[in-house]
């Protein structure tokens, strides 16, 4: 269970982690500047297990993996939005930041709501409002990747198989 930070549409990677901080790739360093240009107070208020809920096309812009890494290292357990920009979507799955596409949840959840998420079923429960929403569960291929604990382990497995 976590409390919700709510943002609008088209949250781009430049506000998630501005390029001026990309001279490092250390997750903890990046986390210190997470969401800085959109919500300067985010880093002071975020707690382990919190959740970001946002409008469509979350994570648009650059391919910087630093964006999902910064969000994950800041303590956020999951991002929920109606749609994600495609590179961000890939990067999140590849680096192990859970994301869920759910328009209904994005519309009805408000900032500060307490919600819990079941990744296996895609069920999102809003404890504050007593509502539940159903997100699209991941396709098999992606679930494979997640169950393998991301692309790093998947490839590691493949390399071992060929040696």
């Amino acid at each position, binding site marked *: 269970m976590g409390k919700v930070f709510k943002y609008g549409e088209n949250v781009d990677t430049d506000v998630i982690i501005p390029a001026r901080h990309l001279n490092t790739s250390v997750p903890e360093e990046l986390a210190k500047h997470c969401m800085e240009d959109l919500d300067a107070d985010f880093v002071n208020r975020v707690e382990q297990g919190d959740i970001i809920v946002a409008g469509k096309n979350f994570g648009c812009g*650059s391919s910087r993996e630093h964006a999902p890494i910064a969000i994950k290292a800041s303590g956020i357990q999951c991002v929920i939005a109606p*749609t994600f920009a495609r590179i961000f979507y890939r990067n999140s799955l590849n680096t192990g930041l859970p994301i869920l596409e759910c328009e209904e949840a994005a519309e009805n959840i408000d900032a500060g709501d307490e919600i819990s998420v079941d990744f296996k079923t895609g069920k999102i429960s809003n404890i504050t409002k007593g509502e539940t929403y159903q997100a699209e569960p991941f396709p098999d291929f992606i679930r494979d990747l997640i169950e393998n604990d991301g692309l790093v382990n998947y490839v590691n497995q493949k390399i071992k198989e060929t040696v």
Partner: protein
Amino acid sequence: MGMTMTQRILAAHAGLKEVKAGQFIEADLDMVLANDITGPVAIKEFKKMGAESVFDKNKIALVPDHFTPNKDIKAAEQSKTLREFAVEQDITNYFEVGEMGIEHVLLPEKGIVTAGDAVIGADSHTCTYGALGAFSTGIGSTDMAAGMARGKAWFKVPSAIKFELVGKPSKWVSGKDVILHIIGMIGVDGALYKSMEFMGTGLKNLSMDDRFTIANMAIEAGAKNGIFMVDEKTEEYMKEHKNKNKLLKKKTKIYKPDPDAVYDETYVIDLSKIRPTVAFPHLPENTKTIDEVGDIKIDQVVIGSCTNGRMEDMKIAAKILKGKKVAKNLRLIIIPGSQDIYLECIKNGFAEIFIKAGGVFSTPTCGPCLGGHMGIMAAGERTVSTTNRNFVGRMGHVESEIYLASPAVAAASAIAGKIAAPEGV
């Protein structure tokens, strides 16, 4: 069911006769690319994967272009990581600062990518190579690492939107205006997860540089890739820019869409109707034609980037700036996209025109485009930029503003001190 251009390339690289939109495939890659920001992360992941050597040292390109020449100590350390890896793995296509360029200007110029290729790059504007009729798309560092290790990447086969181009653009209208017009029309998620495929009788009226600019900004409409039908101009370009490395064995292969290819939507774009177009802060979709912009005073003009740092862009800027002076107290920064373009500008006198006009003319770098260095804005300032993103804080302070435009509009605006039409100066 017929396949789109993109689907045909993906099917061929996955060793399949047919693919369908939504299908997950694993495709063989012809080129895997990273830069000084995404490369170091990819190298770390590569090691974590337990990989020892890259799948093919000729099929990887590493380009330190973002924070180079190194802007600070941390940037120097990132470049060092990239360099050491390039040396350790004997990477053929590693470009040191004296031979580099902005990756997406450099790779086509060096013939490192060509028609029919499947390319991934740990940089969102990797979609630029679609101008050559290649499938190319941006991915993150972990995908890059997997690509370096195995020469493969997973893809969800995209559906596509068809852009049927007709007519001829008018004098001051270039590829930048065409793509800004399209993004203004379909929005920054108008092509989310999809391919944008460009074809039609109007194609012959667009130069290769126009096409690179258009394909470059496909990502700004959320697209997975943008791709152009190959014609004589493409073939001529590829002939002129053949890769010299025999081991790379580049073969161009031309893919056309099947006659019965299925497209989600078709837009007919009459190039003759497009006016010079400007994207207002803070999204590339906030477009206005030059006739609607009103009186916008500016502090800085940037001409360059992987969108508009090519020879034709320099030429247009030189044509407008020749014998003119930039407005008082305005900073004009011109950054060519590669060392070859830089040298050409020196040889043909463009460098002199730019400097005499009161501009800064620099060695190639991404620099200000991503707010790295070489032209960062203070609070309240405004830049007209030929780059591709005008997000909040992209080029400096969160209270600064970016107006995206063509080199023609940018150069005219530098002289006027406000956003101005190229016809007027």
